[in-house]
């Protein structure tokens, strides 16, 4: 749940990158980290396994600019994608304001995508979220690989709710900021609070 400090005019929001293992969640926020000027970003926290897979989460605080007088701060998290880290994924979703679902476009990963998305819906419902109102963006990653599934198929199998979607090649940074910008906008528009008169 976002936090609005009216006195200091600050907004804090939590965005979680969710999706199957090796889909490109960490690559997304690594790209954001690399392409962000020093004063805007904090230290990227990564809790990894020995072979550099996400063990618990990656975390990147971003101190964005000001919108209508409010300083905006986004906290980007990734979840561990591997199936057996379900408990960790549930924890990281607590207090989430927006989700980027990073799907792996390769044909052979379709079942993993579906399983992960079903898990996301289940975990959100368990925590009392209304998935019809929570901002969620679909990102079709790895579009540069030769064995990708057609966008129409990804949309029909994973995006029945017609959520906003972006194609991406996170390793090259393509689509990364476009996705982040869109989820940030949806999250900001979804903040309850009303302006103090």
């Amino acid at each position: 749940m976002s936090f609005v400090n009216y006195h200091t005019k600050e907004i804090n929001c939590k965005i979680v990158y969710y999706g199957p293992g090796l889909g490109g969640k960490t690559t997304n926020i690594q790209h954001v980290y690399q392409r962000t000027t020093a004063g805007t970003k904090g230290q990227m926290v990564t809790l990894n396994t020995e072979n550099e897979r996400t063990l618990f989460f990656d975390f990147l605080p971003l101190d964005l600019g000001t919108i209508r007088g409010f300083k905006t701060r986004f906290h980007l998290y990734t979840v561990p994608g591997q199936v057996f880290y379900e408990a960790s994924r549930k924890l990281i979703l607590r207090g989430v304001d927006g989700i980027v679902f990073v799907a792996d476009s390769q044909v052979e990963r379709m079942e993993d995508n579906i399983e992960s998305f079903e898990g996301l819906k289940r975990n959100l419902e368990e925590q009392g979220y209304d998935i019809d109102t929570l901002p969620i963006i679909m990102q079709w990653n790895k579009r540069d690989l030769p064995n990708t599934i057609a966008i129409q198929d990804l949309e029909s199998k994973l995006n029945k709710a017609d959520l906003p979607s972006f194609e991406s090649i996170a390793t090259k940074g393509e689509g990364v900021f476009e996705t982040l910008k869109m989820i940030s906008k949806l999250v900001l528009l979804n903040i309850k609070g009303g302006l103090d008169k």
Partner: protein
Amino acid sequence: MNLSMIIKQFFIENDFHKIANKTAVVRNDGIVLFSNSDNFNESSSIGALVGGLWQAAQSLNSIVSDRSEILEFRLSFDTSDQGIYILPFNINKKEFYICAIYNDVNNPALLKRHLRNLKGNLSNYLLEYVSQNEDIKQDFLFNNITDEEMDNLFSFSRY
């Protein structure tokens, strides 16, 4: 005044912000409500890690016990002179953590006792405030945001 300002006022008035090298009050989703660090990025990392640490410990404990809800836990990671001490408290059924990260302390037991007292005082202080000011705003903060405003917000990036 909101919760963050009230907590800050409480700490400053009572000089509690000096209790440890780093002292913070964190929401259970990792959002920092108070930190004695001037560095926003450092505070954010503390918030994310404290939230994650507590929740992971809670999940681990639930493997052997289902009484977590009714017991009062504390989390300690320490040597004889440095470490981390985290205590939870609840305000209106919402969980918060107060955390001390300390180094080169002669009497960590005393520091921990101070933190426990502080937690009690702070939660009483906040309960009084929250019960008087339960004004939950239901309107949206922004009714619309233009693409230009979003471009400005993301002007920091070099993509």
